[in-house]
């Protein structure tokens, strides 16, 4: 379906020269070449094409891609998974995976054609001229070698330092990369490091030999938001100090705009738009870029509302009514209340001694009918533990959960079984939440079957309805999870959660593994369903930008404790705690005003 005529592609690149008026003055942020002569690009990618050989034939991963990077400049290649952005990055450093082959065009580095280098030539280039900071910090360090050894290795291989000298330089590099106590840390192994520390070590490795170009492939997407920001800031400091050019590969338009001066947008192997980052964000021209910009969850975005007027289902109290009555004595709108939840885990410390971890420490909240409560926190904040307690998967150490005013601990086993119908989960991992052995029909039917609802025929009708509800074609019933994309699986998971007409849906990071456009779609679907079915959501997430788009009330958690609570609007407009402010500030590109549609 995508076999567009490649010959026409060469000509369909238009140039709109929007050079922002007379803004050709020397920019302070980007060091251009001295004097008046035109600066020479450090890296030039020209009409570049990559194809992969698969069992069904050749798949074109990159088509006619052209862009360039100047010395010391930061650029970003933005795209969703499968857009070909990582393929370009791999090709630049000569690490195309598997059956990938360059089928056309060329890459010039420092004026030299490196498209078809020999292995030896690449080895000379890697590390010393082009560095790499990979995506997943935990899997990119060899678990059996110390961190110090892995930095030293880069130094020795590129003849930067030798022997004990190399050790000294390695420790310095780690210190420079922002690891405190580097001398001791260098002797430790990757599993003793947190994700953020591993990424710092990898940045240290990437910059160890002072390369001219650093490829940062989604360098922080696996990390907590505040850590993300600190690491990107630090990376920025280091590279501007060293004059290193950086090529960010990212799915996050906000991050791209904030960290790069030039942005390349890729879609299905093609560059659809490129230009100065602010231009792209504020004046996108290609329909795909427009979609991306509109979908980008950033601070300037608003609470999503349903296509129809929100919360007006007949017979249901509207949000306003719920709030009013909730403020009074009746608590009519309350569907769930948690009081002083505490969960203590017995764990073992570093030396094997017994310790207690207060994963959830005195957390209380109320969810009103038809509204969304978001629990925001970074990893280890205890937010998922709260979700598991509510779902009855974990017993709280103390505290109580009330379902419509009834304490959960007073429920009998059969009542609890009935209670489970009213609250359903949607989990984070779209690849783990559906049983791969079951068809979509059986996945969605499972809750009905467990709760013995209806006859076979009735269930089949219900499954079809549910698929309609989540905008999947009824034909999807016969398919298997392995055939669907992440977003589609998440729709199926939502349909399964809706099967028993629940009142509350617990969304545990339900959209964080999805691409931006798909994420926006799912969030819209959730908003539509909420107004249509008067659902209440408990949104567990690390992503404040998503909270802004979907929550009414917010709880910020850290280390098991509640840091701040409030309505979404209040919290963003006027955060009371420093930690909340840090979280808000960490949203990439949060401060950049976006194009808001024509």
């Amino acid at each position, binding site marked *: 379906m995508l076999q567009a005529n490649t010959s026409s592609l060469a000509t369909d690149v238009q140039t709109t020269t929007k050079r922002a008026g007379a803004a050709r003055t020397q920019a302070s942020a980007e060091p251009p070449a001295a004097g008046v002569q035109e600066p020479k690009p450090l890296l030039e990618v020209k009409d570049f094409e990559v194809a992969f050989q698969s069992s069904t034939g050749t798949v074109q991963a990159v088509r006619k891609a052209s862009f360039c990077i100047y010395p010391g400049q930061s650029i970003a290649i933005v795209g969703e998974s499968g857009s070909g952005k990582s393929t370009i990055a791999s090709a630049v*450093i000569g*690490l195309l*995976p598997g059956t990938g082959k360059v089928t056309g065009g060329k890459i010039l580095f420092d004026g030299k054609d490196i498209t078809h280098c020999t*292995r030896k030539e690449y*080895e*000379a*280039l*890697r*590390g*010393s001229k082009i*560095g*790499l900071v*990979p995506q*997943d910090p935990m*899997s*990119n*360090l*060899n*678990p*059996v*070698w110390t961190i110090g050894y*892995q930095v030293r*290795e*880069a130094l020795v*291989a*590129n003849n930067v330092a030798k022997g004990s000298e190399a050790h000294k330089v390695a420790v310095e590099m780690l210190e420079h990369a922002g690891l405190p106590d580097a001398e001791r840390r260098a002797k430790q*192994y990757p*599993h*003793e490091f947190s994700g953020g520390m591993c990424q710092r070590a*990898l940045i240290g*490795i990437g910059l*160890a*030999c002072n390369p001219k170009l650093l490829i940062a492939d989604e360098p922080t997407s696996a990390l907590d938001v505040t850590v993300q920001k600190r690491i990107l800031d630090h990376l920025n400091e280091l590279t501007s100090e060293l004059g290193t050019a950086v090529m960010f590969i990212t799915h996050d338009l906000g991050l791209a705009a904030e960290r790069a001066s030039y942005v390349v947008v890729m879609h299905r192997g093609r560059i659809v738009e490129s230009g100065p980052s602010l231009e792209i964000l504020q004046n996108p021209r290609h329909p795909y870029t427009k979609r991306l910009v509109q979908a980008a969850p950033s601070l300037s975005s608003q609470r999503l509302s349903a296509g129809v007027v929100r919360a007006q289902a007949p017979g249901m109290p509207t949000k306003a009514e719920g709030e009013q009555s909730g403020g009074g004595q009746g608590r009519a709108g309350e569907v769930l209340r948690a009081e002083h939840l505490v969960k203590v885990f017995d764990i073992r410390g*570093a030396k*094997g001694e017994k310790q207690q971890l207060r994963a959830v420490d005195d957390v209380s909240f109320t969810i009103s009918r038809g509204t969304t409560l978001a629990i925001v926190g970074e990893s280890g904040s205890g937010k998922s533990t709260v979700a598991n307690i509510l779902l009855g998967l974990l017993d709280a150490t103390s505290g109580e959960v009330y379902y419509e005013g009834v304490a959960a601990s007073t429920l009998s086993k059969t009542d609890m079984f009935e209670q489970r119908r009213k609250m359903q989960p949607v989990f984070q991992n779209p690849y783990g939440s559906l049983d791969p052995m079951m068809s979509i029909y059986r996945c969605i039917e499972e809750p009905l079957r467990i709760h013995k609802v209806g006859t076979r025929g009735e269930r089949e009708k219900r499954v079809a309805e549910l698929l309609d509800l989540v905008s999947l074609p009824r034909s999807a019933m016969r398919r298997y999870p392995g055939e669907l994309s992440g977003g589609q699986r998440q729709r199926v998971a939502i349909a399964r959660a809706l099967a028993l007409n629940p009142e509350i849906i617990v969304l545990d990071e339900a959209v964080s593994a999805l691409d931006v456009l798909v994420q926006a779609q799912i969030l819209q679907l959730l908003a539509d369903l909420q107004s249509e079915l008067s659902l209440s959501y408990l949104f567990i997430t690390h992503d404040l930008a998503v909270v802004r788009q979907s929550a009414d009330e917010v709880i910020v958690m850290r280390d098991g404790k509640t840091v701040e609570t409030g309505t979404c609007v209040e919290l963003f407009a006027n955060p009371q705690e420093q930690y909340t402010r840090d979280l808000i500030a960490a949203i990439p590109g949060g401060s950049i005003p976006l194009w808001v549609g024509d």
Partner: protein
Amino acid sequence: MKRYVGRRLLQLIPVFFGATFLIYAMVYALPGDPIAALGGDKGLPPAVRLAIEKEYHLDQPLIVQYLYYLKGIFTFDFGVTFSGRPVVEVMADAFPWTLKLALMAIVFESVFGIAFGVFAGLRRGGVFDSTVLVLSLLLIAVPVFVIGFLLQFIIGVKLGWLPVTVDRSMSFKSMLMPAIVLGAVSFAYILRLTRTEVARNATADYVRTATAKGLSRPQVVTRHILRNSLIPVITFIGADLGALMGGAIVTEGIFNIPGVGGTMYKAIFQGEAATVVSFTTILVLVYIFTSLIVDLLYAALDPRIRYE
């Protein structure tokens, strides 16, 4: 690390008692009356018989006999055979043969298994890989005794390169062919394991990162692919020593080696309970000992284990 090894040690204690008791019970159930056999055709006078039964605690129930036996083991008293020879002496005769055979087999299977496996794994799908894979399957499919017969016939008899049977001095040359036969199946397993591990690690993220650091291909292969791939291979090799010693009986039979297998075989048929139980106990101890070594090796090779 200490906790980890300590826990494994604790787990192995019940295994020792369980295994030795099971063996003891099985030998106890062996048919035949060895005491009667002692008397030859004439038969033993009842008084003598009673005395012998008393001496060997044969009049006691199974569990008591087992406890007496355990007591003997802990005082290094393995008892005597029915002909009056201390079992320790029998062991001293047999074990060196089997130990040497097993060690030579281990060296052979590790060196060739790893070398072939690495080459096959680095060039997965190539000619060498495919050939070696088919050969390894054949080695697993053909019983050891067929391999033994064929090697003995071709190399020993037809070509005359190596002696057909071993000599008393346990010379390297005469032990070589038996060692290869004994190690043949494990060789195939090691080869396949190494190949899978190498192929898996070669696509690991950290290998890509190591390449991106500017390391040369040989450096990447040795430090990152091999180092990580060998962890499960080495643990397999460690665990194999016990298996080879206990499983050498077929090979020993083919090459007329007076090792553990042959001695046990005879003892079982003669109902020599003390010999059978003692030999098996030693083999169980070898298993437990090598398991512990493997755990230590694992902890030494994989830093993640140390902090469990």
